[in-house]
Every structure is written in C-alpha cells, then in structure tokens.
C-alpha cells in the first residue's frame, strides 16, 4: 500500500491505496466524486478526462500514485459559489449535450483550451476535442458551446460570469 494525497477541486484527499489503483477510481471511489465517468476504459473515449495541474489527462490511464501531490480538477470543481463556469453556461445554452456522458471530459478539455488559447478557431476547437468521443450530438453543438464559452470568458463583464 502507498500513501497518496491529491488535491481535488481545492480539497485534499488522502488514502492508503494499492499502487495499481487508477486515478479515475481514486476520484470516483476514494473521493466519491462520480462526475468523472468511465467510458471505454481503454484511453480512447476521454469521458474520464480531468485536469492535472491544469493539463487534461485521461484518468483511466494514470495511476493515482503517479500523480501523487497533484492538483486535480474535475467537473464538480467548475461551478463556483452557485455560478456556472462559462464553459458550463456554453454547453447549457448551445445544447452541447444530449445524454451527458462525455460532457465532463468535453468541458474540461474545452476549459483547458480556452485558458491557453482564449480565441480558438473552429479547427482548433475540433482538434482539442479530438481525443474525446461523443456518440449523441455529432460534435456541432459541442464546438459551438466551447466557442460560446470563449466569448463569455473574453468579455466577463458583459455576462457577469466568473472567469476563474
């Protein structure tokens, strides 16, 4: 057993775990944050995507012990003080989801993209989400949602949405 401490959405979670415990299982079963989904379990679909020190990663393909000490952000950490994050607003307003299974991963990839590139082209958005599969929407509205979130984040005063 190994001692692992992860800061998830600003809160420290620690546990004695087997080294083989995957990060996604730590998040879902140790921290009880089930917004992070397990889809394919083979590094293909991206439903388990979380941000590790701000960088998107597939949490089904990392060991919890491998990222010991890291700051993790999951979908639960997007909303702040009852205010939806602009990326959540974007998915809500542009109908960026149907079943919602891929949505946590899509939103975190979108957020990371917008932080790095505040005004991405459609091609750049499509490229950023190319490791995340959606089986409902055909991606058109997901792309619109991320684009719309970008606009909100560039003009925070106009919408009153937080940019954090």
């Amino acid at each position: 057993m190994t001692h692992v401490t992860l800061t998830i959405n600003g809160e420290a979670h620690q546990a004695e775990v087997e080294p083989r415990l995957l990060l996604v299982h730590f998040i879902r079963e140790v921290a009880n944050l089930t917004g992070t989904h397990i889809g394919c379990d083979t590094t293909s679909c991206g439903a388990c995507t979380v941000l590790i020190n701000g960088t998107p990663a597939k949490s089904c393909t990392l060991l919890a012990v491998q990222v010991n000490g890291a700051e993790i952000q999951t979908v639960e950490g997007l909303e702040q003080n009852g205010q939806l994050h602009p990326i959540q607003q974007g998915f809500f307003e542009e109908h960026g989801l149907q079943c919602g299974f891929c949505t946590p991963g899509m939103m975190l990839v979108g957020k990371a993209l917008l932080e790095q590139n505040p005004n991405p082209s459609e091609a750049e958005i499509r490229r950023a989400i190319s490791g995340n599969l959606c089986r409902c929407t055909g991606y058109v509205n997901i792309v619109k949602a991320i684009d719309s979130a970008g606009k909100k984040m560039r003009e925070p005063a106009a919408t009153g949405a937080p940019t954090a």
Partner: protein
Amino acid sequence: MIPPPFQYYAPTSMSEALSLLQQHGAESKLMAGGQSLIPLMKLRLASPNHLIDLQKVPGLTTLEERDGALVIGAMVREATLEHSPLVRQRYPGIVEASEVVADPVVRNFATLGGNLAHADPANDHPAMMLALRAQMVAIGPRGQRRISVDDFLVDTFETSLAPDEVLVEIHVPQPAPHSGSAYVKFERKVGDYAVAAVAAQVTMNGDVCAQAGLALTNVGPRSLRAGAAQQFLIGKRLDDQTIREAARLAGDAAEPTSDLRGPAEYKRAVVRALTARALRKAAQRATGGAN
C-alpha cells in the same frame, strides 16, 4: 480493468533507478508517461512485478540543439515537441509524427522516449528517427553508450537496450542546409495506429538529392528503413519519374500483413502513395529555405 498488483518505485536519481533495475531485472519495467504501458497492464499483456516510474529522475527533459544535434530527453512529452518553436522550425518531420500520436489528451503525458523504447512497429516516432538517422543514448551500470536507431529497433516490442539500461536521450543530427523532413500517416480515424505511414528526410544540392532517409511505419515486425529507395534517390533530380520509382521501391521494402486495417497489397499501395507525398513535402521544405 485494473492492472495486476506490482511494487511501485519513483526513484529521484538515475543511480537509484539503475540500482532498482539491477535488483529486479526482468521482473521490472520502466515507466515514462505510461500511456502505452498502463493500457498493456490493464489488458494483462504486461504484468511487471516492479514498476519503476522515471518521472522524478532529473535530467530527462532536455530539449536543445547541442554539438551538432537536437538533444531530446527521453521524458520530453509529445505535447512539448508539438509546440516547441525550435522543433517546429527545424524538425517539421518530428512535429508531424508527434501530432499524430494517439490524441491531444494522451500526448500531454506520452513521451518520446517511451514511444521509442516501447518499440511498437505501429508507433510513429521510430520511422521518423530512422529517416533522420537519430542516435539513442543509454545509461547502464557500465556507463553510457550511443546506439544508432537502426541497431536500437530489433523486433516487435524489442529494442537492443540491455535489461539494466535506461534510454536517456535521443540525438537527432542537425539538418544540413537545404534539408527537409516530413511524416505522412494514413489512419482510419483520429488516435488510431497507422494503416501505413512514411517518414522522409532529404538534403538537396541544387536540384539534385544529396542525401535521403526513408522509413515505414506499421508495415512490418518493426519500423523499416526503405534502403533501396533511399539509395535510388541519391544524385537524382526529384522529378515525378524519380519519385514514382522511389515509391515503388519503398512499397517493395514493406512487409505488411493483412488485418482489420486492410489487405497486405492495399497497404503496400498506401506505402507507395505516402512515399511520394512525404518525399514531395520534404523536398519542398528543403528547397524552401529555412528547413
């Protein structure tokens, strides 16, 4: 899917990593980004008893030109290579190979050293490194040694690294003036392994090809150098006829097998088409100036 149990180590120095390797030998496995190894462990295709994570070993993330070579530390991430202005400007073939490894999220953790040491003939970097005539630098208990990429790649999932050695750096010779490189991959969908892919490097002397590197991905038990095609190009103008003949020779060098990605003859035809595209792209870059 959950990997079988193992002991985990995160050494903080190379000497510690080497002594762990010596202690556990064939029972152990080195891990770089883990993006190939962890899936294999989940499928029980790999079940090391001792997992040695290299992420805390210092000195493995160099990325600079030094002594006539681009020196890339084994733990440099694909995403870093993709976005490096130096690599983008001078080594476009490496960028093109990085950009088609799995998907952007995987590339945030996947490393060049892991891609090469894994020696999967479907991986994209080995062929590019063959075309660029890269040297691998390994450290072991007997010290450091350099291995040409041709000698490094032995067979499917097999390199010439000794069980107690660690791949630490990849040295890519700096391009001579009027050189260009390219990597062209044909894949069914984003993130898939190649149906086939071709890596090309050319150095031009006026309108004549002075040096050529050509190598093939996923059409054999290892990444293959298309030696006869390379040889054929030397001293020739890269006109349509020459490129067609080089493409034919590259197709002959392929050793494809029929599988879900297509019948062998189809893959050979893909190799011919991609060879022509990769050569044209590399030649264009070579004559375009900077590269």
